[in-house]
Each structure stands twice: as structure tokens, then as C-alpha cells.
């Protein structure tokens, strides 16, 4: 056997290894392919045949075996290639945080106008109205690259300045963190757009103080937002939305903190859309008990373990504080944990999420349904594309 044959044999052996790997992986995915085939191929329609077949490929990407491992490999490759812009200009990595890339503005003028209309409405109704501007990730923990690819800071400045100049009561959470000399590296989750739980509770404490001064209704439970010894803390590894397509080798996962009250709590949640009511403790009513799920891992989205994702209109009642204030919060997920812990100091908080209004004027319904001591609009920039006042077509 000449050495040249060895050289060729190496190629053959390597090729066979590659072939066996591909075939083995394909066989490993037979249950996935079978399941996709069964659910899709039996329901093929002539009108949308091509689209349905293309959808199988998309579903396979999502359900292929070892997807997480491949994601980790992908993230590792990005790291090796020194790529800090991830996906198709979707995210940018800077200062150990992932940032969202948003190359175009939000067209926030319509939203600004609606906020001012709401303010006028509340002024006439003699109900204090507060606009709370969420913090800006790119300016606070990002850097030049993140700021270059995201207009949120300018947009937030515009919101705050315009509303302030037009007589709206504004709290800028950016200033809250700066004034308190808060460790900015601990404000945001590294892998997700949301804040860390401690930061959200900090905001809740500041909001509670401000609202108490505004409404004149002092809360005896204010200390619950300042002293965490009243809670049992549990921490879970967490991989947020900004990092789910780059995996663990690109950016280390977060540790998501949750604080469970160790004191007695008694709540009711009323879903105004379905009419359903849920009674129980803080964990049972305000939280969603993800910790009781069969599978808990770093992909469990703990952010929505609080409040009611996709529900446009519901009320949380705190039976242990019936003399407390009643608030209406118009918000998206930026306020999930903030408002959850704020509820411990209030009598009642009604939540409206404009992202899920779907044409129904829940704002007007909520304002006419119940009484409030204050109305708060709390958002970062994600509500700017939504209408507070929903109109029927043609109006």
C-alpha cells in the first residue's frame, strides 16, 4: 500500500463520517418529520399548496432535534467571526448586552396626540394622569454602536419633552436611575429587552411614592417595595428574546430573580373580556406559576410569569388593602413586574394593553366601567405604533 492510497483513504473515511452523521441525524429527526408530515400533508389545499409546503420547512427549523445545540454552535461561530450584529440586522451586541436594531422611526406623532387627548380627558375628569417613560437600554448600557442603530433615545426624549411642554405630568425612569446613582449594569437583563426584577421593583417603589403624593392616598405598604426581606427570592437561568438565536456561547445567560411574598396575600383577578375571576394569593393571581410547569429551563420566559400576556383588559384587586388607591395602568410588558409589586401597595389596579385591543375601544370602556384615583401610561417605545383610542373602520 503506497502512501498516496493513505491520502485518498483519509478523504474517503472523512466523507463516510460526514455521510453517516447526516444520515444519522436525519434518522434521529424521523419522528419530527413524521409529525410535521402528518399534521400538514393531510390538510393540503389546492389554493395554497405552495404556501403550505413552504411552511413545513419553517416548522422543521423550529422543531428540529438539537435545535438549541445548533443555536449554540451558530452563536459560537458569530463569536469567532467577531460578529456583533446578529441576524438580518436584528440585534447588536455591545457592552455585554444585546440591543435591538431599529433603523427607522416609530411615527410617534399620532401616539403623542392621543396621550395629550387622554391627559385632557383626565384633567376634565379631575383624575391625575401620569406618563411614565421607560428607561433606554442603548443609552444606559449600550454604547455608540447601539445608539447608532436604535432611535429610541431620541424618540424617548421627544416624548418626554413634547408631553412636558404640553402640560402632561411625566416621570422619566432614566432620570430616576441616574438620580439614584443606580448601578446601570444591573438595570437591564443582558439577553432580553426587559429590566431585571430588582430594577422593576425599584421603579415600582418610586412610582408608588409619586402616586401617593399625587392622589393624596398614602400606602402603609410602601415598605414592601423597599425591603426585600419580606420575600423569598428564587433565581432561575434565563435566556431572553434578544439572544435566543445566538445561544449560550455568544452571550452568557441571565439569572432571573423572582420575589415571592412570604406574608399573607389575598387577591382577585377579573378578566373583563371573558368575565372569568380568579381568587387566591399573589402567586396564584398576579403570577402564573411557571415554576410548577413540567419543564423549566433557561428558555422559560419568566417575564410573562407575571400579569396576563395578550389580555387587553383586566383588574387585579388587593383585598388586604381595600383603603388603598385604585389605578388604571395602560402599559405593555415593560410594566409586568413593576405593576405586579405595585399592586401590593394599592387597592386595585386595572391593566390595559393596547397591543391586544384589536379594534375594541377598551380605553373608553375601562374609563367608564370603573373609578380610578390615577391613570398611568407606562411604556418604552413599543406602544408607539398602537392606538390608545380604537376606532371602527370608516371613523
Amino acid at each position, binding site marked *: 500500500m503506497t502512501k498516496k492510497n493513505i491520502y485518498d483513504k483519509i478523504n474517503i473515511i*472523512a466523507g463516510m463520517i460526514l455521510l453517516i452523521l447526516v444520515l444519522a441525524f436525519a434518522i434521529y429527526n424521523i419522528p419530527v418529520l413524521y409529525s410535521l408530515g402528518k399534521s400538514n400533508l393531510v390538510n393540503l389545499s389546492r389554493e395554497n399548496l405552495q404556501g403550505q409546503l413552504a411552511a413545513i420547512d419553517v416548522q*422543521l*427549523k423550529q422543531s428540529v432535534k438539537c435545535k438549541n445545540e445548533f443555536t449554540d454552535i*451558530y452563536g459560537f461561530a458569530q463569536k469567532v467571526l467577531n460578529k456583533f450584529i446578529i441576524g438580518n440586522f436584528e440585534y447588536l451586541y455591545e457592552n455585554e448586552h444585546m440591543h435591538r436594531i431599529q433603523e427607522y422611526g416609530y411615527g410617534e406623532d399620532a401616539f403623542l396626540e392621543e396621550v395629550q387627548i387622554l391627559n385632557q380627558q383626565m384633567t376634565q375628569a379631575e383624575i391625575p394622569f401620569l406618563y411614565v417613560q421607560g428607561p433606554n437600554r442603548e443609552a444606559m448600557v449600550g454604547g455608540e454602536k447601539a445608539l447608532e*442603530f436604535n432611535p429610541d433615545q431620541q424618540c424617548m426624549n421627544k416624548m418626554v419633552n413634547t408631553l412636558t411642554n404640553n402640560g402632561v405630568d411625566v416621570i422619566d425612569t432614566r432620570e430616576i436611575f441616574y438620580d439614584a446613582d443606580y448601578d446601570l449594569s444591573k438595570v437591564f437583563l443582558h439577553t432580553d429587552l426587559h429590566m431585571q426584577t430588582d430594577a422593576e421593583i425599584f421603579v415600582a417603589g418610586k412610582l408608588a411614592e409619586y402616586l401617593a403624593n399625587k392622589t393624596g392616598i398614602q400606602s402603609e405598604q410602601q415598605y414592601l417595595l423597599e425591603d426585600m426581606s419580606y420575600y423569598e427570592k428564587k433565581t432561575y437561568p434565563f435566556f431572553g428574546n434578544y439572544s435566543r438565536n445566538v445561544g449560550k456561547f455568544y452571550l452568557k445567560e441571565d439569572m432571573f430573580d423572582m420575589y415571592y411574598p412570604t406574608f399573607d396575600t389575598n387577591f382577585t383577578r377579573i378578566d373583563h373580556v371573558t368575565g372569568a375571576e380568579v381568587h387566591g394569593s399573589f402567586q396564584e393571581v398576579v403570577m402564573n406559576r411557571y415554576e410548577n410547569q413540567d419543564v423549566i429551563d433557561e428558555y422559560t420566559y419568566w417575564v410573562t410569569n407575571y400579569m396576563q400576556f395578550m389580555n387587553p383588559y383586566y383588574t387585579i384587586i388587593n383585598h388586604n388593602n381595600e383603603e388603598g388607591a385604585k389605578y388604571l395602568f395602560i402599559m405593555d410588558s415593560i410594566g409586568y413586574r413593576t405593576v405586579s409589586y405595585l399592586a401590593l401597595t394599592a387597592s386595585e389596579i386595572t391593566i390595559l394593553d393596547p397591543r391586544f385591543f384589536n379594534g375594541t375601544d377598551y380605553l373608553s370602556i375601562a374609563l367608564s366601567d370603573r373609578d380610578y384615583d390615577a391613570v398611568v401610561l407606562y411604556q418604552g417605545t413599543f406602544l408607539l405604533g398602537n392606538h390608545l383610542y380604537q376606532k371602527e373602520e370608516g371613523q
Partner: protein
Amino acid sequence: MDLSSPIFIFGFWPCCFLVYCILPKRIRNAFLILSSIFFYAWNEPGFVVYLAVMWIGIYIAGKCISKMQIRGKRIVLCLTVFICIGVLFYYKYLNFFAANVNRIFGRDVLCAVDTELPLGISFITFTFLAYLFDAYYGKIPERTSLANSGLYFFFFPKISMGPITRYGTMSERLQNKAPKLNVEEITDGIQRFAVGLAKKMIFSNTFAMVADRYWGITDFSNLSVAGSWLSSICYSLQIYYDFSGYSDMAIGIAEMFGFHLEENFKYPYAAKSIGDFWRRWHISLSQWFRDYVYIPLGGNRVTLIKQIRNLFIVWLLTGIWHGANWTFIAWGLFYFVLQLFEKRTELPKRISSVWGKSIYRLFTLLCVNFAWVLFRAPDLRHAGHFILCMFGLQNNLLIDAKTAIIFGNIIIVLLIAVLFALPILPWISSKMKSNSAKIIYSIIKNITILILFVVAVSYCINSTYNPFIYQDF
């Protein structure tokens, strides 16, 4: 389902290959035909019937052409060519033609039709035409069966994006009624596929995102000089790695089944001249036009005026083949001018100094780069503005902050891509004199291919953005 989709890599292809290996040899070719029809039907279910009808029609026409006298040959050839081109015209060019006629007359003289471009129609049509012309020239063996012709037309690795294969390339394997499995072909093929997938997913898609971002800018004062150059270079690399990657995948898979398709790319960006570039880029297409248009028209064995005419026709048709847009026609005619310049001046041959040759190579690359701007632009106006941006003539900045950031993001990928767009590996391989050096090279090469394949698959699964440029043709 394309060659880089997970459903193909982990579903269709392994299944197809395993069944092929298990089946008795006599029915393997028949199985490949069915697999190919299934592959095409998955992507284009509504067009399969047309293909089936054309297959039978072209086969019968080919038989008739082979057997007839010269007059009958020409009539049948012209008729079937007319039908093939007519279908291509209907799906690809009718609306463009109608829009331009209406523009000339200033009113709606012709109506647009509501059609979608069937997958690979240009490649399929040229394959049909190649078969007909080869039948006319007596190059199709008499024993060619309907099944063999079907496998030649529809073989799934090459049906949507080529290479545009001649029947002669595949005939020996097609005539083999009991094809055996060949371990070397299988292992070479899968490694070629892996390299192609890596080219497409890791390199082409990276550049695609950058190029598409800049091509989306409509306010040209916002497109800096650096941004426009970065975009054009990224597009040049995108299209190379996209198309050559696909060709590698197609050739690799075909080889696993015993078919040796033509090479389609030979390091085109290492070209010494425009003529040399077109002997390295999309080789199957340029050879198609050479053999079936240029040479039958007389090639360069005619008067100067006719040579120029022949060149003009070839490049006009090359541009038109790529798409129904004035930009493609301009792109083709741009190469006509360059090729005419080279033929008339013989400048590439006359330059003897190393510096001169290097400068001419750079000139070639620049011309190719500008040509890709024409190729990529949505219309001529946009192309014009884009080129003006490249020279800072649109009141645009020299460099903007975002471009600097984007460049920093892709610098490593860019350097690797530029390096391997040149024939570095063949050069290294040629330097391996001793067998131990060859063994080490082989080990490193194979490990690299394995790693690249795994990384490419991770891109497949994770990425939501996976365009195939030539799939639109």
C-alpha cells in the same frame, strides 16, 4: 425546498439516497426521475404538468429531428424551439414587453398577465433547447429512452439553478441501466455538498444582508461613498458564493448518484481579463451561448461587422436571459462593449509586465463590480444614482458611522471570503510535494469541511434570511 433548506438536508435527500442505495440497480434511475418530479412538485406544484408535457414533446421532437432529413429537421426544430421560447416569454417577459409597448403608445395597448415565474424556468428551457440542438447536430444517442431524457431534464440537483448540462455529460451514466454505488463518488460528493452549503450559508447570506440593506436606501444623499462601495463589493461576493455554492451543492449531490456535472465556476474573481472572467463565471451558460448562438452565427470566423453582430446578439441574449428588466439588458451590453474592446485591442494579450497584468486584473475586477451594480439595481435610474454615490456625486458623505460599524462587523468574514474567492487552496495543494505534507493537508482539509458543514447547518436552522439570487431566473 431548496438545496440549503433543512427539509432537503434532513428529509428529502437522506431519504432519497437511502432508498436509492437499497433499491435494485435496474430501477434506480426510475426512482431518481420520480424523486426529481417530487422535488420540483414540492416547490412548484402547478407547473409539473407543463413540464411533463414538454418532456414528452421535446423527447418526441428530438427523435424526429434525429431521424428526419435536413428540411424536416429544421421545421421541427424551429417549431419546438418556438414553443419553448414562447412559454419562457409568456412567464418571464410578457409583462415587461407589455409595459414597454404601453409606454411607447402612451396607453394600455397590451394587458399584463397575472403569472408567477415558475422555479428555474430559464434553466429548464435552456436544457430543453440544448437537447433539441444536440439532437439536430446528431449528438443525442439513438438509444436514448424517454426515461433517460426525463432524468436528464429534471434531475433534482440541477433543475432549479443549473449547471445547464448537456445530454452528453450525463449520457454515459444515463445509459447505465444498473448503476453501482461508488464510495469515492459518494464521499467526494458529500464533501462538495458540504463546501457548497458553507459557501451559501456562512458567506453569501452574510453579504446578502449587507448588500440588501444598502440597496433599500432610496434617498441617495444618505448613501455614503464607503457604503455604496461596501454594498457593491458585498453583492459581488454574495452572488459568487450564492451561485457557486449552489453549483457545488448540485454537483456534489449529483456525484453521489454517479453523475458528473460540468463545473460552473473556476475562481472567476482571479480572472486576468473580461474574456477570462466569462470562461470562469457561470461556465455552463457562457458555453451554451457559445455553442448554440455564437458559433452557429459564425463566431469569429466571419467579417468584422458580423463578428460584432454575433457578439452583440450573444450579450444581448445573455442579459435578457437573466431577467425582464432594462438593467439586465444594460448589464449584458456593458459586457458586450468590454468584450469588443478586448477583442479589438487584444490588450490583455499585449500586456507583458507583471505590474501591467496586475493593473489589468484590477481593472477587470472593477468592471465586474460596476456590472453587478447594474445587475442588482431595480431599474436603470437607481443604478445610475448608485454609481454616482460611489463617486460622491450625490451630495453624499464619504463615510457614515453605520457603514464603519457594519464594516467592522463583517471584516473577518470579508477577508476570508476575498481570500478563498482566489485559488488559494489549489495553490497550497500544488505546493504539497511530500506525501506526509499531503496527508497533513488532507486531514486539515477534511476536519475543516466537517466543521464548516456543522456550522453551515446551524446557520440553516437559525437564519430566517436565505435568498437564492439565481433561483429567480
